[in-house]
């Protein structure tokens, strides 16, 4: 639903159906809404059957990369004699994104259930839910949900009376965006600095504690119980007719300069124009949308025309110059100085760089410095070339893609919104001339 607004009739409420319902938070209320029937069913299934079902559903990772979830699970080899782990990525720190928080605040048991099913499917007895330290309410709700689920015999050494062991443990982060990157998260869970690891080895071979590990986003795992209960074909049906590659419903967090910010759930392929104007109410009065960043601050910026032509799914966003990313839709209107916001984004990445790679450590710092200089009216045209050179040097050359993410808004900004940059240079000239005369 357009939470905290009333659901819009064109939304498809699956994950967000119970947002805002206090009774859904506790175990009894959750059971009254069909909670844990999917886990009961899943524990009676063979892991391979669940993996196949999730593959058939077309579910793809909601954490940013969109990797097919069933395929990822199939990398976990059963019977290798090693302990397997599931890690649920609840670090949600991508600016513009606040959907996983709502899942955990309003429907914590949905995530506990998704984690338990996921763990069983990949042959793991333990699932860790790594929640960012700032999410105090989500932490409290998830801790309470786990406690109640243990007390009710849903989790533990004899999960739901099946004799199977399923543990779900909450692990609290301590402030570091980079810990959302999967290998950094594993290091952090192990009690180390959150530096991303060089891949390979991939997590399915050597993940947390050196054991086979699968890592999934909150929204990905929360979708799984619905697929178990309603089947792959049901999930597949949430898509546009001409694109079978993106299926299911997707939560979008909407923020910035727009009438009705909030979380909305729509089927894959939904027209972005209708989404922005009908569901979210369009621009603030007297203003116009200037730029849209649809997948969290790490994805390329769209012009209004690009956004309005987009059909909202993995392929639809790519076809219009950007990516679905985390589903954090950031709307910037014509009253804003776009270059300032790109500079602020760069400062974010400079602050969050783990500093292992030179291109990233130096590149994020210099990008920020130069952009802030331009915003201050002290930039030159040469700065544009320097920025693009640095961006080039930051792309595809580092251990993780944080470096690329910092370069992304710079490149898309300078290519698509050059006039905004030019205006700041011109402003300087206007400002300089009288000074010289005097």
């Amino acid at each position, binding site marked *: 639903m357009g939470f905290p607004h009333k659901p819009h009739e064109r939304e498809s409420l699956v994950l967000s159906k119970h947002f805002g319902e206090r009774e859904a938070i506790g175990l009894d209320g959750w059971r009254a809404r069909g909670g844990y029937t999917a886990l009961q069913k899943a524990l009676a299934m063979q892991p391979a059957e669940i993996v196949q079902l999730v593959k058939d559903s077309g579910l793809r990772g909601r954490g940013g990369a969109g990797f097919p979830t069933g395929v990822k699970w199939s990398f976990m080899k059963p019977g290798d004699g090693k*302990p397997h782990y599931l890690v649920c990525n609840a670090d*949600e*720190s*991508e*600016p*513009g*994104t*606040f959907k*996983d*928080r709502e899942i955990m605040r309003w429907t914590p048991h949905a995530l506990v259930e998704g984690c338990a099913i996921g763990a069983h499917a990949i042959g793991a007895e*333990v699932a860790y839910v790594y929640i*960012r*330290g*700032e*999410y*105090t*309410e989500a932490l409290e709700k998830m801790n309470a949900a786990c406690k109640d689920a243990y007390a009710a015999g849903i989790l533990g050494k004899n999960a739901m009376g099946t004799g199977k062991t399923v*543990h779900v*443990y909450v*692990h*609290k*982060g*301590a*402030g*570091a*965006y980079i810990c959302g990157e999967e290998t950094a998260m594993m290091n*952090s*869970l*192990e*009690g*180390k*600095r*959150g530096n991303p690891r060089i891949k390979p080895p991939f997590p399915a071979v050597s993940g947390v*504690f050196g054991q086979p590990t699968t890592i999934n986003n909150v929204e990905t795992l929360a979708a799984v119980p619905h697929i178990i209960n309603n089947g792959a074909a049901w999930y597949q049906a949430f898509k546009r007719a001409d694109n079978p590659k993106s299926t299911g419903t997707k939560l979008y*967090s*909407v*923020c*910035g*300069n727009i009438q009705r*910010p*909030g979380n909305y759930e729509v089927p894959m392929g939904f027209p972005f124009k209708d989404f922005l104007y009908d569901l979210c109410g369009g621009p603030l009065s007297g203003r116009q949308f200037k730029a849209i960043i649809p997948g969290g*601050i790490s994805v390329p910026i769209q012009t209004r025309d690009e956004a309005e032509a987009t059909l909202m799914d993995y392929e639809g966003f790519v076809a219009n110059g950007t990516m679905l990313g985390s589903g*954090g839709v*950031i709307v*910037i*209107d014509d009253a*804003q100085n776009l270059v*300032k*916001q790109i500079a*602020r*984004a760069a400062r*974010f990445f400079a*602050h*969050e760089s*783990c500093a292992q790679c030179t291109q990233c450590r130096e590149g994020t710092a210099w990008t920020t410095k130069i952009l802030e200089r331009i915003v201050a009216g002290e930039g030159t045209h040469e700065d544009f070339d320097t920025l693009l050179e640095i961006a080039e040097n930051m792309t595809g050359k580092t251990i993780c893609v944080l470096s690329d993410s910092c370069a992304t808004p710079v490149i898309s900004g300078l290519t698509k919104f050059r006039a905004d940059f030019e205006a700041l240079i011109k402003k300087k000239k206007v400002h300089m001339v009288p000074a010289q005369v005097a």
Partner: protein
Amino acid sequence: MSVDAADASYAPVFTGARKTELNELLTRYPTKMAALLPALWMVQEDRGWVSQEGIAEVAEVLDLTPAYVKGVVTFYTMYHQHPVATHFIQVCTTSPCNVCGAEDVVTALLKHTGCEELGVQSPDGKYQVIEVECLGACGFNTPLMVNERFIESVTVDSVPALLASLD
């Protein structure tokens, strides 16, 4: 900033109920080291910050070296390496909040708390304001955290009432 802050009055955290809690926590992980972040949280919850002595105690109970623990503490922004004011206020000013007026909220907070600048405590030691990156509550007016409390939709106008409610 990097000088090791000491706490002469430090009393051990991992005794009694906290010790039991830590032992229970250790059953969740195959290594002791994995309990490091949770253990540091316990120190900060009980002592308000993570001092040299806190680091030494955590190192001892988890069989790590103090130097290792310190290396981890400095990586994560939420562990306080120095004592903080009674009301430690962290305001998000990242782009999504920035376009909705977060910088004005910061200015209003500085003005009404009497803090001279970001990061510096007010003369009475009551307030300290810092800017932080995205708190995962974008979309509405400015979100901030006061110690462990999350407060959303703060505006320039609501700042005085908010501060009054903290006492």
